[in-house]
């Protein structure tokens, strides 16, 4: 412990100021906030109200209307069912595992159309799902008022998310502009067994299974048991969802640059 006595020998501040200065500060603040403290009384007023324009400009450091603070806000999602290709990427990338792919109307009986259903009780609003969505159909809006008295109402079905889309809320522009993935789906031929799983599950149908010649068996050599077909990916239709990679039972598909 330092010697308190030596420190006390030279008082740094006048005791009157030690009391008077903070009290003056408090009085000044009291006078300033007597009629209007800076609290925004939330359920009755909102930051978006025009009367808080100045304060928003100060907070965002930008003029109002150019980069409003809530422009890149991550609120409730909006889903455009019409353009969703059921690629499963959103559910795949969700760190909270709160997206379920559920069947919606509009698919054929053989390939039911599945769209994301989000449980907002678990969602952390990270935005990974809308980042991952290759079609830009799952984006985040600025709506943040989701409280409900029932837990079951926290689960938003695709139709409900679609309704959010049609309510034309401002969307997060950052989530709409996405960099292109230049990589392609490549195949490691010796591993492939020609099972058709990738072609069956590809949401865009850009994989075709082409026949490959069955090689002659050398004496003493046993040919692998497989179907003599190989997937060929049409790069211009592929949306880089990665579904084929995740369904491949032999892990023979991978990302790479096509030579």
């Amino acid at each position, binding site marked *: 412990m330092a010697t308190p006595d030596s420190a006390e020998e030279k008082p740094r501040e006048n005791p009157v100021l030690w009391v008077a200065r*903070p*009290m003056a500060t*408090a009085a000044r*603040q*009291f006078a300033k*906030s*007597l009629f209007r403290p*800076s*609290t925004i*009384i939330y359920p009755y007023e909102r930051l978006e109200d025009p009367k808080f324009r100045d304060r928003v400009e100060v907070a965002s450091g930008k003029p109002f209307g150019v980069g409003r603070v809530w422009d890149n806000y991550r609120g409730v999602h909006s889903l455009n069912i019409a353009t969703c290709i059921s690629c499963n990427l959103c559910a795949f990338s969700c760190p909270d595992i709160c997206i379920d792919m559920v069947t919606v109307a509009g698919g054929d009986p053989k390939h039911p159309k599945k769209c994301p259903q989000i449980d907002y009780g678990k969602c952390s609003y990270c935005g990974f799902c809308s980042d991952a969505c290759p079609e830009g159909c799952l984006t985040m809006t600025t709506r943040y008022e989701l409280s409900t008295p029932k837990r079951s109402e926290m689960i938003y079905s695709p139709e409900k998310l679609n309704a959010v889309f049609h309510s034309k809320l401002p969307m997060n522009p950052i989530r709409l502009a996405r960099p292109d993935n230049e990589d392609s789906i490549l195949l490691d031929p010796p591993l492939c067994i020609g099972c058709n799983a990738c072609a069956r599950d590809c949401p865009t149908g850009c994989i075709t299974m082409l026949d490959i010649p069955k090689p002659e068996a050398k004496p003493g050599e046993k040919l692998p048991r497989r179907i003599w077909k190989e997937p060929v990916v049409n790069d211009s239709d592929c949306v880089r969802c990665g579904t084929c990679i995740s369904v491949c039972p032999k892990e023979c598909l991978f990302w790479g640059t096509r030579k």
Partner: protein
Amino acid sequence: MSTVTLYSVSYDIASLILHILGFIIPPANAALTNGNVVTGLAVLVFGVILLAASMLNTILLIWWERKLLGRIMDRRGAMHVGYAGLLQNFADGFKLFRKTTVQPREADALGFFSGPTAYLVTSFLLFGILPISSGWNSGILPLSLLLALAIFSFAPLFIFVSAWSSNNKYSLMGGMRSAAQMIAYEVPLLLAVVAVVIVAGSFDLTTIVYEQQNYWFWGPLFVALIVFVAGMLAEMERIPFDLPEAEAELVEGWNTEYGGMLFAFFMLADYLRALVGSILVVLLFLGGWTMPSWVPGALTTFPLAGIFWFMAKTYIVFGVFVWVRASLPRVRTDQLLRVGWNRLLPLSLLAVFLAATLVTVKCVWPFGCLPSMGT
């Protein structure tokens, strides 16, 4: 108006109740309207009115503190329950009263339960003996100031008893700090009171108030006022002298182990003591329920004007306590004692000296003369 006092009102209520009862039950009429029975019930009604008034004021005081503190901190304080959050504290109180009282396993039940109760009861007693206006008082008590201060200094005992019987080291530390602090600050506090008593020439609070008819004592006895307010802050354990609670070091100080209703007792008693402290400042230095003669008569003669002005002054004084709380940080123990012994004690001696001088010269320039000294 001077004939209507709190006791006469209670007596009227009591006799009204008893006469109605006697009307309903004719055989008991004679027994019920007996003078002793009426007096007994009148005292009871008197107590109930005092209790209700003190509870109401305490809860309003908490609201006042929350609002003021909010404004000083650039926010709003309670605002949803009732008009401007006036009923918030009632809601909080009901919540506390509904909670289970948890008693630590090793705690001493007798002290654990009697400590807070006695603390609260003595605080109520304190409110009962203070005159609020010419009508609202508990009769003529020639030594009411001494009685009030004596009851006021019961508190360290009860705090220490509850802290000791909680069987928790933080409680015990808080209790010891509380006792040490209150005893240390009693000396300058009483000396400041002595200054007032010298000038007023009486220990009766009513007399002290009437001695201030020419000028309030805060002007000539400003030094005593400063010492008294600082001592009161320490006695009430409010920031910057809230070492016994010291949330940052001692969890919650001496009431760490208390929850539910017993915690509500402590809370109520704390604010009651704050109320009493503010009332004492008003009585001793701010002229009690009287107003200066330059105030227009219409403002001082309406019914209950005395109580109104008294309470207005009390809330303003408490507002100053809140202002201090919002501005100053908590002092360390050594600073606490240094302020107490090195600064407040000499100041209070100076205040006594000034008071003696004032009594000798009788008239001081900007204020005027004392009324009828030495009768």
